């Protein structure tokens, strides 16, 4: 995987997830960060810190990104969500515009 094609997502606890840009840009917010005409710090460094998203949630979100891509390309499977994560996950989704 080339470095330019990936982006590093960092959770509140400092845990780093390296994912494909294509996957990360499922989030409209991340999409804007990485494509904005002026180059913000995120675009220069290829990493985004989310001080308000916990590792568990961010991990779930990354799984969702990939699941979403598969789903969009026609592979219709269930995406399991543990009930205890629901609320926080929704908050993050709202924030990430996913």
């Amino acid at each position: 995987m080339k470095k330019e094609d990936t982006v590093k997502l960092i959770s509140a606890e400092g845990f780093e997830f390296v994912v494909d840009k294509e996957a990360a840009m499922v989030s409209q917010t991340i999409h804007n960060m990485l494509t904005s005409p002026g180059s913000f710090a995120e675009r220069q460094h290829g990493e985004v810190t989310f001080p308000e998203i916990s590792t568990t949630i961010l991990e779930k979100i990354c799984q969702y990104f990939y699941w979403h891509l598969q789903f969009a390309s026609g592979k219709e499977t269930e995406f399991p969500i543990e009930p205890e994560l629901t609320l926080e996950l929704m908050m993050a989704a709202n924030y990430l515009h996913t």
Partner: protein
Amino acid sequence: MSDQKKNFRLEEFKHREGIDPDKTWTMLEHAIHEIYNQNISGLSYEVLYRNAYNMVLHKFGDKLYSGLVETMTARLKEIARSLEATQGGSFLEEMNKKWNDHNKALKMIREIMMYMDRIYIPHAGKTPVDQLGLNLWRENVIYSNQISTRLLNALLELVYGERTGEVINRGLFRNITKMLMDLGPSVYGQEFETQFLLVSAEFYQAESQKLIECCACGDFLKIAESRMKQEIDRVSYYLDPMTEKKITNVVEKVMIENNLLILIHMDSGLVSMLCNDKYEDLGRMYKLFRRVANGLFKIYEVMTSHIKESGKQLVMDRDRLKDPVEFGVSEDDIEITLDKVMMLFRYLQEKDEFESYYKRHLAKRLLYGKTVSDDVERSFIVKLRTECGYQFTSKLEGMFTDMKTSRDTMQGFYTSHPKLRDGPTLTVQVLTAEVWPTQSIVTCNLPAEMSELCEKFQSYYLGMHMGRKLSWQTDMGTADLKATFGKGQKHQLNVSTYQMCVLMLFNNADRLSYKEIEQATKIPSSNLKSCLQSLALVKKRNVLRKEPMSKDVGEDDAFFVNDKFRSKLYKVKIGTVVAQKESEPEKLETRKRVEEDRKPLIEATIVRIMKSRKLLDHNNLVAEVTKQLQSRFLPNPTAVKKHIESLIEREFLERDARDRKMYRYLY
């Protein structure tokens, strides 16, 4: 994550940490300034987005929004000031640059405030960030008094420059146009277009005035055309497409419509173009004039009167009247002339009248042996046939056939009567009565030698063809006479049949009175007079002498052989004095005959149409009859109506019982 989940209300849930709105806003405000300063590498999108997000989430959307408006307004005011301060020429460039910068900044601001755009603005009924940025630019930059006038003047100056041949920066202009359009079509209209059209009208007003004074019509039109094209190009290069119609209207109105009559009536105007075959100029005039109201109608008017005028001149021209078509000498020339004649022929409405005259002239040519060449005659008939169909020329072709058959008949006659070769020779042309133009039959007494021959031929011919009737057309035909005059000079005289009859009388007499001649020949008096006139009163052809020597032939005159007759030529052709032109009554006669010939044609056409249609209303029937007959002539609707009525009387047709306008075919 699906739409349903997104719409879930989160109100009961309070965020982990509260936020300090003032501190957050100060931070965002700083970022906005940095964005305008194009100094963003130190900014984190996530931080800005999260702060804006949190402000909205914690119900400080109002503060965020009004803060944004305030900050942006301040920035734009500053920009306006710096624009006002720019010197001269770089104004438009500077404006364009600032506009681009503003747009770039606006895009970034919109992105970090995406959450506000998405959630707060629709909810609070505010203007979205994009539009807000445009509005603020319009209010603070464009509508600033100084900038507004300066912008307009700069743009108009560029246009003027280009119209007078300068090269301008079209790309820059295009960008400014686009800016004005982005700000709203009304901005483009107010700030530029309205004035642009006014100034253009003035410009072209002045230019037309100058051109009218010094240019020929053709040149004026050329310039107008190129101006038109320039304006269209200008629109496509750097103005909004909606301006095209308006600016071309201005050019049309100012250059063409306002000068319409002047242009047409100039010395070098329409008539001169028509006379000098200036097809290109005429084409240009048509193309330009059709764009304005009444333009083509004016052309039409002037052209009509010109055509009528020159037509009248042609008709009044005496030389032309005598010989309307100049025939060339060589075969090729004749072909070309005939083609031209056919061109004219196509415009004839009453082709049957033409046919009637043509037939008469052709008959004369054939019978008097005056045709230049049989091939040419036939080639013209072929042309007529191609144009009008077989029916039209069948009679003409019949005339040729008669001529040929007659030649064969004569050959047969002399082979069967070998003894006759010694005496006078008779050449008979047997004409089919209905094919040749009908002539009232006037007989005269032929000299004994001739009538003997004629009887022989008659019995020979009737013996060959049972059940036919021959009658002699003594008013046609020619004769060659060998004459010996007083001092022994011999001449061969080419004369008409009547003249021959008269001259033969002088074989047995030296002096004959008019009465005696009339009695002996039985030639109708009008023909006899012209015949005697041509024998006695035409210089160098006067084989007879008249007493008294007056200019007209009177009933008491006496005639002698002119022994002093002299001619350098052995063969003398004695013409007949005939009126060159048809007299009025003759014209009426021809006209009547043509009308007469039309009757069966119209009736046949009505019957043919009704036979196939069975039921048809009056108007359609008349239209159809006209259509079918128009290759021959234009039937008069009243005439058609009369024939319909006559057909009803004769029970070919009947009127429909319910609808009196409908006709029904009865057989």
